[in-house]
Structure formats: C-alpha cells, structure tokens
C-alpha cells in the first residue's frame, strides 16, 4: 500500500491504463504540459508524450465531440472538462449524442469513453465553479455516473471507467484533491456499480457520495461518541448503475435512511434513492426518510456562506439528532 493524494490517484489510474492499452488517449484543456489546473494529471505528458496526451483549445464541444468520434472508431479516449459547471456548454454532446447513440443505432455504435470533471464546492469559487451536478447526469439514460470519495477508489474506478465499454462520467470532488489515502500497490481496478459499506451501525443508515462521505463518517463518529446514535455509512460511489441491493439491505437493517447530498435539493440523487426505499422496503422503515442537501440556491462564495450552504458535519449531526432520537 502506498499513500497517495486524491489528485495523484487520478494520474495513477490513467497511467495504469495507458501503459496497458495503446488505444487509451487523453485530451483536455491544460492537461498535458501544464499537468492540469488541479495538478491531477501531472507526469502523464512526460510519460506518454504529445501523441497520446493532447492539450486542446477552449472548445468543450470539440473536446467531447472528438472523444465521441474517436471512441466509435477504435480508441478509448478520456476527456477532461475542467469544471463540471462547464458541462453546460457541451451538454448536447453528453445528453443527446454520447448517451443516446448506442440505443438510437440499436447497438451499432458503442462508445468506450470517459469524461472526467472536477465537481463540487469547498473552494470558494462561487456559483459557476462549485456546483455539484451529478444529478444532471443521473437523469440521462445511457451514461454511467461515478463519484469516488477516496484515493483508492479514484484510481480503481477511473481504471474501471477506462475499461468500461460504455461512456462513464467521473465526478472528482475538487476539494478532495489534497486528501491522502492508502492505495493498493500494483494493478488496481474497482467495480463500477458497487456501493461500499464503510461503517456498521444500528440506528440509521447514512447514504452519501464523494465529499459528503467524509462528512458522514465524521458525523457518525460524533453521533456515536457524544449522542449514542449508531450509524451505518454507505458510500454510493456509483449513481448509474446504482447498487440498490446494498443500499436497500443496509437501510432495512437499521430501519432509517438518511441521504447526504451536495447537489441542490430538487431532484437530487437522494430523492431517487428515497423513492426506491419507499417503494420497496417501506415496511422495514421505522421513521421518515431524511434528506440533507444543499438548499435550492446557487452557491455563494464567501467562506462562511459556502460553509453554511453545503451540508456540514455539524448540520448532519444536528439533523440526525433532531429526527432520530
């Protein structure tokens, strides 16, 4: 086991797959010589050179279009969209083209491509550089959506995404880039579509994603030690496909579901999970479902405002105490 930062794990996952498969190529803005604006792709240009690691103009439609055209003709491109907010300028490629082409062509065209993007708040960048937009992506049939929380998952899930024959959108949480964690040595590939139970409890099951997983774990610790509330914590990891087997089993065991979502309230991913739980294991529930989300507002920028907008550890503790005791 080596200790890597989340950002180093990004480069490690990409490098692992590029060494293994000559058809893997990588394109995006400032990803090559500069190593990425978040320094998540440092070293790739040096190792793989300008033929495989390609800096692009500021042309998000061209980036995703080129990835799509390359994917349908034998390559396995990885495209970086610098901030997930910018997906809005190339959303046609994601929502209408990449996601739908396989179905519309009845399977003639398969698109083994990966879109990586920096998602989420915590960096005081304001409403156009801090959104959590995983729920936009989840709403579109035909694209897989993952969001790792730990360096080991970053490496393993990016590797799995590159090997996946279908398009995968990877949301990296930008304020986790400096987070350090153990990453298995040697080849490491995780399975897309599997949630992970990180902590076992008896009073409620917290289901969280990306940065919110870290907050869930911290809150669970406090709830246990200071308030005697014992929480299971499930890291969803993959929104599409969704590991409902694990989620339903863990919710049924404790009888309570809490989702912690960084996306704004309406149509957040937790609403879908709440609906599935209510549909399928309603009689296993001991009380109402609790959704803790960012309120339905654009994100403010100042430290204090941003910290009080996305779910904080304190808010998670408070809401769970209020509603579960």
């Amino acid at each position, binding site marked *: 086991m080596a200790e890597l930062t989340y950002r180093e794990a990004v480069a490690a996952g990409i490098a692992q797959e590029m060494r293994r498969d000559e058809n893997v*190529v990588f394109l995006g803005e400032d990803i090559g010589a500069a190593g990425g604006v978040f320094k998540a792709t440092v070293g790739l240009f040096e190792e793989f050179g300008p*033929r495989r690691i*390609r800096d*692009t*103009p500021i*042309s*998000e*439609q*061209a*980036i*995703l*279009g*080129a*990835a*799509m*055209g*390359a*994917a*349908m*003709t*034998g*390559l396995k*491109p990885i495209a970086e969209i610098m901030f997930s907010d910018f997906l809005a300028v190339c959303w*046609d*490629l994601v929502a*209408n*083209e990449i996601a739908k*082409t*396989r*179905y*519309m*062509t*009845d*399977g*003639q*065209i*398969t698109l*083994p491509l990966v879109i990586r993007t920096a998602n989420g708040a915590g960096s005081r960048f304001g409403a156009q550089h801090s959104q959590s937009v995983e729920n936009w992506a989840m709403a579109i*049939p*035909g694209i897989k959506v993952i969001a790792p929380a730990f360096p080991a998952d970053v490496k393993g899930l990016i590797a799995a995404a590159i090997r996946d*024959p*279908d398009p995968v959108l990877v949301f990296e949480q930008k304020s986790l880039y400096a987070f350090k964690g153990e990453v298995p040595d040697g080849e490491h590939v995780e399975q897309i*579509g599997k949630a992970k139970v990180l902590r076992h409890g008896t009073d409620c099951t917290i289901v969280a994603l990306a940065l919110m997983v870290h907050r869930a774990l911290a809150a669970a610790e406090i709830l246990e030690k200071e308030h005697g509330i014992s929480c299971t914590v499930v890291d969803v990891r993959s929104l*599409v*496909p*969704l*590991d*409902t*087997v694990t989620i339903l089993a863990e919710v049924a065991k404790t009888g309570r579901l809490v989702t912690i979502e960084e996306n704004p309230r309406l149509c957040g991913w937790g609403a879908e999970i709440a609906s*599935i739980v209510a549909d399928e294991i309603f009689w296993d529930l001991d009380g109402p479902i609790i959704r803790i989300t960012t309120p339905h507002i654009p994100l403010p920028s100042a430290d204090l405002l941003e910290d009080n907008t996305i779910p904080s550890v304190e808010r998670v503790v408070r809401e769970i105490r209020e509603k579960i005791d």
Partner: protein
Amino acid sequence: MDTSKPMILGNDIRLELYKMQLDLRYCEKRAYDLFLQNLIKGTSHLSLGQEAIAAGFGVAMRPDDYTFCTYRGHAHTLARGASMEGVLGELMGRQCGLLGGKGGSMHLTDVTKGAMGSYAIIGAHLPVAAGAAWSAQYRGTEQVAVCFFGDGTTNIGAFHEALNFSVIWKLPVVYVCENNLYMEYTPIRSVTAVDHPAADRASAYGLEKIVVDGNDADEVYHTAVKYMERARKGGGPALIECMTYRHSGHSRADPGAYRPKGELERWLERDPIKIYRERLLGLGIVEATLTDLEVESMRKVDVATETAKGSPVPSLDQIDKNVWADGSTAWRN
C-alpha cells in the same frame, strides 16, 4: 474551380455517378410517396435536388472512409452502400430498418459501410467527425472523415470549434457545407454576416475558400477526390461549400411558401440529374444505356419498398435492449 474546362473523367466513373444519383433520387421520391400513404410517420427531410453532392462524395470515398451527416441524411447513407430496404424500413418503423426502428429517419447509420450516423442537433457531428479523423490519424490508417451539413449550421458554435480544432491537429477530415440557401425557412443570407456562410469563414481557420457547383456531380467528385487525397496524405482538413437547392420543403410539414416566385423553377432547370443526363448524352453515351440504368434503379426501389413493407414491425422486447454494450438497459442491480 474552373468549370469551363471539361473534367477528365472516365465514362465508367460518370455512369457510376449517374447511377448513384438515380438511386438517391428514386429512393427519396419513394420516401415521399410513402409519407403520403401514411406508411412513414414522424418527420423526414428530403434531399431532392441535392443528390450530386452525396453521389460525388460517395463515389469518391474509399470503403473504409467515414461519413457523418445530418437528419437530411437518407442520400448520404445510401451513397455509402447502405441497403435501400434498410433505409426505407427504418423510415417505416420496420424490423428490417437499419436501426431496428429505434432511430428513425433522422439517425440513419450503417457502421459496416462507414456511415457513422445522422445527427439531428445542428452542428453536433462536426466535432464528432473530427474525432473519427483523429482516430484515423492516430491509428495511421489513411482513412478520411467526411462531414456534411447545411448552410444554417455555420452559425452555431460547434462549427467553429470543430474547424479550429481540426486545423490545429491537421486532421484528415473534409467538411462539406451544402448551401441550399435556406436554414429551415429563413434565407441564410439574411442571418449571416458574409455571402458564403462556410467558404467566407474558411480564412479564419487558415483554410482556403472553396465554393463549388453542388449540382454538378463531376465538379463535386473532382473536388472530393482532390481534398480527400490531400487529407489522406496528411495535408489536413478542407472546408468545401457546395451551392445547391432543395426541391422540396425543409421537412414533411413544409410547403416552402417562403420561396420567391420562380426560384424553384430556375433551380429545377439546374436539376443535377437533368444536367448530368444531358452531359452524358453529349459525351456520346447512347440513350438506351441511360434508360436501362433508370429502369434498373426504379426496379431496385420497388423491390426495396416491397421488402420493407413486408417486414414486421419491431417486437416490443426490443424497447429494453441496447442502451449498454452488454445489450441491457439496466441502471440498477
């Protein structure tokens, strides 16, 4: 291009160009008839009058080259050798359709023939074609991607992104603007800063200005060969504007009432098939040869129509197939 000089083309190529234009014309006319009989639903965008472009490029392309086209793509798909019953079957929503009834008229695709899809969001496929060209360049296959689109498409961002991107990477892609003078209903000149919506923008991307007579299959063919060969040999992209006119409305619902009186009639005089037939006769090809081709083409369309009509509608179990590479549509376990 200097059109006063006769093109040096063998009669075999010329007959192939004529035959291809006939197939595209008769099949498209049949599509229109099938609409009127309510056997084709939804919308459909005919390229009657624009056949010389699809034919000129279709004949010039290597079998492994890539075509990317728009919702007005029946002709471009057929021009790569996709089957007529596959095209008509898809338009009629039958099992024998190229896409099994899942795509419809606006998304015709036949990957086995290099027809890499018909795209219905304006501009989207220009960067996709760039990506296929990038892949060809990366793999060193000397394949070329040819991307067809309309005049209206030159005013959307993806057009400009794709051109710049293709030039800086020197990609083997040929962009073909079919300037039929109208976007949907609005004359292109009234919404564009320059006279030639594509060619007058070429210099912004370091490309030469190329305008050709899109109703002259020989001229299109020559231009196609020239710029595809250049792209194949690493010379980078080209942007070709083909002047043409659609004989029918924009889509099924459009009677074309916005056209000035006499415009259609003038363009019908310049019908690509009419002028090509006259040229072939002028070159000494006997009329019977042409009539034989015409009869044979109509017969092919008739056979394809009957085959497609006889094909069952898709089975309902197809709804839940082919979102993912494993054939499934599962989003949960």
